[in-house]
């Protein structure tokens, strides 16, 4: 299962004041607050962690169908980081979500998956033939009328629609059937 979240930093500056009293404390665990405080660029760290939480929540919501506002229960761990990419994981009770965050100018984009290997099979698609079920969970409907997991994220100037490579999904479902 997949989830993704894109953030337009310029849009965030218009919409949010992360330095507001109480803001960080309500959204981030103590460990995450330390990561932010010790970062050379606290603003980016706030939105990196937030996009990891949002992307992971989308996987969690797709699986559980539960809607709740639980940023502090989605704890982020950064495993490796360079100038353009961050690999990490988000843990929510017994669930582990693997994340990959891409950093571009003013753009932070995180993809979260429940199966680590799926990170190698993510692809961006056009926003068309998207169907939402009654839980507001989106699916991509292929020409053969098959439903595939899809995740849509839009913020400011950026929009990302991602899915797991269809061949990969179909071989998964075949494995389940037989």
């Amino acid at each position, binding site marked *: 299962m997949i989830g993704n979240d894109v953030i337009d930093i310029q849009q965030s500056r218009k919409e*949010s004041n992360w330095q507001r009293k109480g803001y960080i404390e309500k959204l981030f665990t103590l460990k995450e607050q330390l990561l932010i405080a010790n970062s050379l660029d606290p603003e980016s760290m706030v939105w990196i962690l937030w996009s990891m939480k949002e992307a992971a929540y989308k996987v969690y919501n797709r699986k559980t169908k539960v809607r709740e*506002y639980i940023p502090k229960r989605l704890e982020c761990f950064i495993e490796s980081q360079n100038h353009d990419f961050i690999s990490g994981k988000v843990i929510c009770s017994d669930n582990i979500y693997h994340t990959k965050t891409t950093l571009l100018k003013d753009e932070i984009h995180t993809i979260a998956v429940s199966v680590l290997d799926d990170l190698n099979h993510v692809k961006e698609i056009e926003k068309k033939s998207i169907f939402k079920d009654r839980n*507001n969970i989106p699916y991509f409907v292929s020409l053969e009328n098959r439903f595939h997991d899809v995740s849509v994220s839009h913020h400011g100037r950026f929009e990302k629609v991602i899915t797991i490579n269809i061949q990969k999904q179909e071989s998964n479902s075949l494995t389940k059937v037989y």
Partner: protein
Amino acid sequence: MNKEELIAKLKVIIKPYTTNTEAYDNLTENTDFINDLSINSANLVDIVLDIEEAFDVVIDNTDMERMLDVKTAVEIIETKLAEK
């Protein structure tokens, strides 16, 4: 403060974060902050903080987790005000 007054006060708080003005104008107890008002989830915490300031209450994590629609927000504020 009766429920109508409470909703009116809440409505003022959520206005700056709302992008769907039609849903905002037709706001009812069943209005969902994210699905109906298209409020960015990063701004839900602002609504929680604004409620804390405006009503002089403290909203803990467990309450914040449920605060996704007008009805639940009103319930939580009413409970907090009654505890004062």
